[in-house]
């Protein structure tokens, strides 16, 4: 990508361990504006953990996070949101006993001048955003648990883009979706990319993300195997990185790369 710019996000030498197990060890990733970076790896490779550090759900043991070249202090989800980092979690993380509008504005409710919830305004803008994302969505008054997987997914995505996110993290965004909805999410990612939003796409399935991503980072056993521009490598080569940790010539090796004997 445009190497002369400062990266939107730069995570440097991040480590975190849980009870002696190094979930993420000395991992560094970066992301530029308008770029889609895929974070690949097996289940348990540490990609979700790494990204949860960025979104404030976990506290790192070591390492630095830079946003626009400046050190960012992210200790909880609120801090992350202040930096414009929005996350769509693999588990969707919606409160399924309340309706779509309540979920979209959860933690950031609009209030009237008397300090009460401005449900009307929230629902109106929810309708607008959902209309853009998923024009078929009509069930605004129902609790989210009554919705289908795809509808819940669009609620989760709507929540992330509602507040002018600059950095979007999508953890297995298409795991719960059918083919048509997956295509919709793909279109959405392209649209957001055009708007200059940086997107981290996390997946264990290379086929989901290879065509959408500008670059890939591959993780294995908590370490970064390496990264590459998608135009410089083939799917099979990336697969080799995921499975064996073998870095192809087109990629830059990281600390987790297989040692060449």
């Amino acid at each position: 990508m445009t190497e002369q710019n400062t990266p939107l996000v730069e995570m440097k030498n991040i480590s975190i361990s849980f009870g002696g197990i190094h979930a993420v060890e000395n991992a560094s990733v970066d992301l530029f504006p308008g770029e889609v970076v895929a974070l690949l790896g097996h289940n348990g490779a540490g990609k979700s953990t790494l990204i949860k550090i960025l979104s404030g759900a976990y506290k790192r043991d070591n390492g630095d996070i830079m946003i626009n070249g400046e050190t960012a202090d992210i200790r909880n989800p609120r801090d992350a949101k202040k930096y414009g980092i929005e996350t769509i979690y693999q588990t969707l993380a919606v409160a399924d006993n309340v309706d779509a509008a309540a979920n979209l504005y959860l933690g950031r409710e609009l209030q009237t001048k008397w300090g009460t919830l401005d449900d009307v305004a929230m629902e109106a803008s929810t309708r607008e955003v959902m209309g853009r994302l998923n024009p078929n969505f009509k069930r605004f008054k129902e609790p989210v648990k009554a919705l289908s997987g795809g509808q819940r997914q669009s609620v989760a995505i709507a929540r992330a883009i509602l507040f002018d996110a600059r950095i979007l993290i999508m953890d297995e965004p298409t795991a719960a979706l059918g083919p048509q909805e997956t295509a919709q999410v793909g279109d959405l990612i392209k649209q957001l990319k055009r708007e200059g939003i940086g997107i981290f796409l996390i997946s264990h399935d290379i086929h989901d993300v290879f065509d959408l991503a500008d670059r890939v980072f591959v993780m294995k056993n908590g370490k970064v195997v390496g990264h590459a521009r998608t135009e410089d490598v083939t799917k099979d080569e990336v697969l080799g990185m995921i499975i064996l940790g073998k870095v192809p010539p087109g990629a830059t090796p990281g600390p987790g790369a297989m040692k060449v004997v």
Partner: protein
Amino acid sequence: MAETIQSTTNSKTSAAAGQAEGNFVARFFRATEIDTRMLGMIGALLIIWVGFHILTGGLFLTPRNLWNLSVQTASVAVMATGMVLVIVTRNIDLSVGSILGFTGMIMGVMQARLLPELLGFDHPAIWIVALAGGLIVGALIGTLQGVIIAFLGVPSFIVTLGGLLIWRGATWFVTSGQTVAPMDVNFRLMGGGTEGSIGATWSWVVGIIACLAIIAAIINARRQRKRFSFPRRPVWAEYVLVALGCIVVLGAVWIANQYYWPIAIARRYAEANNIAWPEGGLLISQGIAIPVLMAIAVGIVMTFIATRLRFGRYVFAIGGNPEAAELAGIKTRWVTVKIFALMGMLCAIAAAISTARLNAATNAQGELDELYTIAAAVIGGTSLAGGMGSIAGAMLGALVMQSLQSGMVLLGIDSPFQRIVVGMVLVTAVWLDTVYRSRAK
């Protein structure tokens, strides 16, 4: 997906409503958007009332008994509103009865011993200072318990089980077990009784204000829906709702006004005011009791908090998915602390009602109230799995519990057997609710 849900709801309503006139009944409920669950509770309540009325040979549905019932319900109803929020966030509070005892004792000692020395006997400010003291103590106890639950990670069941023992013991320590009496004259008004009721005229005023509020609320809701072109109820359904609401309110006022002062008190009043004693006796209406007004006010405020404020939204979101709430940036721990602090204050209000009614603060005040409060909330539709519950439902639940109790007393059923019945009703009610919910899915 949408179709399956549609068809199950249809089959459910039509199955419940019967065949031929099923269409009409189903249409009626759909148009008025009356919650069938709430309606079921009201139906159960009416069955209990009519049942006891028949069994007691016409003693239950009398103005006198209904008036007493309303006063007896007030204290537990106040606490049940807070218990809803506690249970919605997947917590429990077993200490409310003991907090009631402790704050009641604090208020008793303040008004019977401390404040008269400071302010003088029968000083008009005594009641409010004592009440404020009780509220502060209740809030502090609740905050302490909430902090232990939220920040030290001790389960609420354990913390409040400890609280149940601790605050009951503390109640004893305040006066070394002595009962404190009598209460301040003004404070006593919060307990109801002849003095603590607002009389016929004011009761009608309250009733009419309530009717106007119902009309205003329905008009406002309709206007909002129209503004954002959401589906609206048919106009006739709006009229039906207004009419139903007003009939219930004015009917309740009328019944409260049908209960007259006891003859002895009326006679004394007549003598004191030089009123000639009329032929049929002097009929002075009690009207709505002050503790009932307090409970209704608490219910309105708590409903407002639960549905119109951020705090309430967070309470339900945490109950629905604690992890999602945390990830959305909600300070879930502080919300928990606030809920328990609020619960403590509500216990103090309940304590004021109950000590004022008894005209004494005793060691045993509020014993077992935690169970009645939890039962009221659960019968009122609060799910122990979290995320679901309504303030109005819990208050109705408190009324159901008290109706059972009161009816059995009228029937002369022994107190051990009363508990057996209450226990069975609780389990049955929750079972029915489980059945209802699994079908509603």
